């Protein structure tokens, strides 16, 4: 990963944290100051979906050309994506506690996200229970692609079919409505970009560590 990308990520994150906490936000009923969760909670989900997407991309590449590098990338992206997902879940529950009254509210999007996490936890269980390395990579890739395709309806279609408390669903003002005024966009988009870059950075480091471990095993 290029050094300037890392610097961009750090600078953007510093900006997002200062501006996100200090800048003026629109006053809305119920939401009030918690609207700032947009800067910290939503980028986690964007990051998770993007990282899972990268994981599926490498899974497809592995199936087309079985190199163990692709598999390493695929599983590492899934790991980091799951970490983002858990963080998104926790921040969302914190926010929901103040606006909806309880951390878990049976919101379709919340349930869908929990199921998406379950899918990837199942993926890790599958990988853990296969001993042959090549088979683990191959079956993991197949399940990864299949599960990702099954996850999309959960995250993007079902919440739109039912009433949801989530901003942006079921008639609630959301992403593109009046409440997200231009000043919030100025913080939100950099936040998404910065967190995605951080995700890529973590993946990069983890892949390098894994490769070094493999090398040391081969040498010993």
């Amino acid at each position, binding site marked *: 990963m290029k050094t300037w990308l890392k610097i961009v990520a750090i600078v953007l994150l510093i900006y997002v944290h200062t501006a996100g906490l200090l800048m003026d936000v629109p006053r809305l009923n119920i939401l009030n100051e918690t609207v700032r969760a947009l800067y910290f909670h939503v980028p986690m989900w964007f990051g998770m979906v993007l990282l899972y997407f990268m994981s599926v991309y490498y899974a497809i590449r592995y199936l087309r050309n079985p190199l163990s590098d692709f598999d390493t990338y695929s599983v590492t992206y899934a790991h980091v994506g799951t970490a983002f997902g858990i963080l998104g879940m926790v921040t969302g529950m914190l926010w929901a506690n103040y606006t909806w009254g309880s951390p878990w509210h049976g919101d379709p999007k919340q349930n869908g996200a929990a199921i998406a996490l379950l899918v990837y936890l199942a993926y890790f269980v599958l990988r853990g*229970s296969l001993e042959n390395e090549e088979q683990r990579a*191959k079956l993991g890739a*197949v*399940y990864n692609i*299949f599960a990702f395709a*099954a*996850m999309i*309806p959960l995250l993007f279609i079902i919440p739109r*079919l039912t009433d949801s408390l989530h901003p942006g669903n079921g008639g609630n003002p959301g992403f593109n409505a009046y409440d997200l005024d231009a000043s919030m966009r100025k913080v939100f988009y950099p936040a998404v970009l910065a967190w995605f870059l951080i995700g890529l950075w973590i993946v990069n480091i983890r892949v390098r560590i894994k490769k070094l471990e493999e090398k040391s095993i081969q040498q010993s």
Partner: protein
Amino acid sequence: MNNKTILQLLKKEFVLELRRKSVIAGLGLYLFSLIFICYLTFNLKQNSISPATWSALFWLTILFSVVNSVAKSFIGEKKGVFIYLYTIASPQHIILSKIFYNALLCWLISLAGYLLFSVFIFNPVQDKLTFFLVLFLVSLGFSTSLSLISGIAAKANNSNVLMAVMSFPVVISILLMAVRATKNAVDGLEFSASSDELLNLLAINCISGALGYILFPYIWRS
């Protein structure tokens, strides 16, 4: 040639299934016990549960029996059978025949479950046509998604646990649609009320069927 191979494979599935009558009997008994447990534990009397509860209970019962029956399509098959199939048919033929066979099996199981539910619990379904359409689409959805997962799980050590762990998150979207459409059918709403769900089910079926068709050759070769 193509269709002939699939038909041959389908015939083989049927012959094998009918030859092992204890397996069919086991499946039937499993379904019956599940429904009987529902009946006893909920202490259900006529119309004592709401349509929503009825459809949730119905689909949970069907889900458990179906996961168990589809799981054995690859799990528990002898190694020799795999090697023999490998020499005579392409992976696409095998997955298609398994999907068709499992769809039929799921459909029969859900029909039997519906019959038992109406005997033991009660039969609140008003719009029968929509309900049977839902049963058909969901059977197809279960078989398309579970056949591939069964193929994956068969390669691992603790297949049965893995089968459940991997399949439940994947079929939840199918199940949610099914429960919603069934609730509409139970309430006797117009067909247009649940057409969204039915179309969604069809779309999910197409996605998982296509994925199964494309991805199965990769796991078959390993």
